[in-house]
């Protein structure tokens, strides 16, 4: 009996001791928006980091989709219960930037923690999105993608078209759609992320402003400008295609991806990160092309990114900030970035990762996966192609989606819809400016 007691006591003491060892590790929280395959890959990264050293421990939690994650983070911040690292999608960037005092800027975090950090190592088209106009990087790019054109080669053949035909301009795409419709193809064209592809990236690609003041990089007093003749021409074209049954509207987000993967849609504009899903599910030969443009304009300039970056929220101890810095530095390591790029179809956000992927021959065995990177870096970025920095942008995108639905259903002309979207969006921008003076 006594022996058993002694044994239990020893066990208890041991448990306490080992518990204190575990506690000696600095634990930090990371809230993110990735489930499914992406969630598994993210978990892999965290486990690798936790196993690579014994000072810090990262705990990650999924908080829903991008919007839900941002909202959970903001609500937690108000209550003082926020995580160390918050994943914020590109649309929320301006909201975070304006909330000075809510985050520790990346350059500051790295400097305070004594981490080696080279902002120049990031692809400028990506890091520019998260960098102030005076060159200070505020958050760490995590996943970034850009829109491309996806081609179902079998449906192209069925439509009597050469699957390798030139689809570089919207005019040529239009001709292909005409031919497909004439041959009875049900869904010649579909698209995901309407505002992101057909207005935001469209603007950058044609080197025309989406909003004034360098798309909002120049100050909070920016105004929307996506109702120029070129914009109207494109949205009117989409509306016409919708009326003629060549373009089918499936929803505001990436719903159309299902139709493409099922082999129903012939041409689709969608993020380059659609790669993992399409490669896994498509039972047909597919191709990746550059996003089409209009001739007689400044296109093709370069496209911009979508995706998320990681923000270090403020109000944490120096110890924890050190852990955060160490983890973010780990994530930007070339091997981690290259693996992420190849697994997901997201861009390699550091130049070293892109180089490593190229030298490994990945692009040769997976043709088309390098197009997104080329498309983003094909030219020196201009004021119009650096990215967007607009407050309340999630809401503005909602407005744009609504107005575009009016065009697709034939209720509004592109001119009326875009003018209305600009006017309604400007009201929100003024409200945001006022709240963040």
């Amino acid at each position, binding site marked *: 009996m006594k022996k058993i007691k002694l044994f239990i006591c020893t066990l208890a003491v041991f448990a306490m001791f080992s518990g204190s060892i575990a506690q000696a590790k600095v634990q930090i929280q990371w809230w993110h928006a990735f489930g499914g395959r992406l969630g598994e890959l993210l978990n892999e990264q965290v486990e690798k980091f936790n196993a690579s050293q014994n000072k810090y421990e990262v705990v990650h939690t999924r908080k829903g989709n991008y919007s839900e994650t941002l*909202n959970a983070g*903001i609500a937690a*911040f108000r209550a003082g219960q926020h995580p160390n690292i918050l994943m914020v999608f590109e649309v929320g960037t301006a909201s975070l930037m304006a*909330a000075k005092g809510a985050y520790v800027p990346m350059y500051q975090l790295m400097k305070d923690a004594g981490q080696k950090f080279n902002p120049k190592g990031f692809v400028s088209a990506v890091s520019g999105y998260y960098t102030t106009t005076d060159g200070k990087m505020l958050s760490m790019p995590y996943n970034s993608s850009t829109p491309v054109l996806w081609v179902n080669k079998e449906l192209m053949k069925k439509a009597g078209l050469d699957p390798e035909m030139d689809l570089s301009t919207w005019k040529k795409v239009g001709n292909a759609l005409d031919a497909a419709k004439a041959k009875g193809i049900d869904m010649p064209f579909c698209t995901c992320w309407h505002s992101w592809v057909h207005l935001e990236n469209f603007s950058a690609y044609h080197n025309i402003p989406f909003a004034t003041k360098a798309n909002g990089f120049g100050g909070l007093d920016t105004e929307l400008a996506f109702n120029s003749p070129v914009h109207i021409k494109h949205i009117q074209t989409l509306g016409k295609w919708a009326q003629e049954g060549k373009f089918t509207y499936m929803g505001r987000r990436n719903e159309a991806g299902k139709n493409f993967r099922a082999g129903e849609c012939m041409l689709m504009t969608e993020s380059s990160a659609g790669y993992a899903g399409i490669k896994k599910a498509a039972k047909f030969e597919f191709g990746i092309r550059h996003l089409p443009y209009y001739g007689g304009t400044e296109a093709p300039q370069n496209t911009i990114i979508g995706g998320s970056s990681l923000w270090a929220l403020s109000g944490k101890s120096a110890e924890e900030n050190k852990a955060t810095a160490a983890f973010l530095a780990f994530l930007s390591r070339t091997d981690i970035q290259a693996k992420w790029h190849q697994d997901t179809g997201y861009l390699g956000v550091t130049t070293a990762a892109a180089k490593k992927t190229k030298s490994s021959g990945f692009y040769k065995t997976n043709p088309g996966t390098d197009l997104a990177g080329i498309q983003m870096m094909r030219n020196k970025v201009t004021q119009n192609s650096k990215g967007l920095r607009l407050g309340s942008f999630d809401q503005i995108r909602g407005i744009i989606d609504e107005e575009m*639905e009016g065009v697709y259903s034939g209720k509004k002309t592109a001119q009326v819809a875009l003018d209305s979207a600009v006017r309604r969006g400007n009201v929100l921008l003024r409200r945001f400016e*006022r*709240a963040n003076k």
Partner: protein
Amino acid sequence: MEKRVFFKGWKLPLLLVTPQLIISAVFFFYPSGQAIWNSLFLPDPFGLKTEFVGLDNFRFLLSDSYYLASFKTTIIFSVAVTISSMLIGLYLAALADRLIKGSGVYQTLLIWPYAIAPAIAGVLWLFLFNGNIGLVSWYLKGLGYEWNHNLNGDQAMFLVVLASAWGRISYNFLFFFAGLQAIPKSILEAAAIDGASFWKRFMSVVIPLLSPITFFLLVVNIVYAFFDTFGVIHTITSGGPEQSTTILVYKVFSDGFVSQDLGSSAAQSVILLVLVGILTVIQFKYIERKVHY
């Protein structure tokens, strides 16, 4: 004759109402006070700074054509859900009431949908009408009717009304059925002997006797359509297309929790609070008078 009970002193009565007062204070007065207070400010999302703006939030709302349209949407939606679910509920109850055998089975089956949470009901109907995989939309396409509730506001409205009314039919059925069972058979028989047809009996005997239940259901269904249909709308349309299914409650949510505009969201809550207050007063003051108990 009204009965009145008097207490001696004030301690016991106070003690007896205290629990209710505490609940009201915590779950009603405190939050509504907060909403009224917040509606006068324009805060940034993180709560780092805030600015007193007076009634600007209300001015901002009332100049927003989509907010005004949301009132109309709410009325159309609530009336459609209430009337369709009550009529169908009454019809089914009248049929079940005439059954001699097996009415228990019908009752059980008809009450089932009530057990389904609004969000789940929304997803179920969404699957049926989904443009990619929906069974109903596939058949409609076969009949030559193009179904796309992502783009067609009327179709979207029809779908959210259908999904919202579906669960309510059970609830209304249950109450109407109980009401019908409570009507003394002798009255109906007397009317039949007087030569009244079934329809005549139904209209001039059954309907007036059902009026307390009808009134109760009217109030409950309107409140349901106003506040409890959030799950259905969120899962099926998220308020779209072009805000054609954005009812007032959904707008409070989307402006406050999606767009982080807490000032506007608070102002909308205040407007909603006033609106519901007025609605309740109207219902009890004018409609209840026509009810025979």
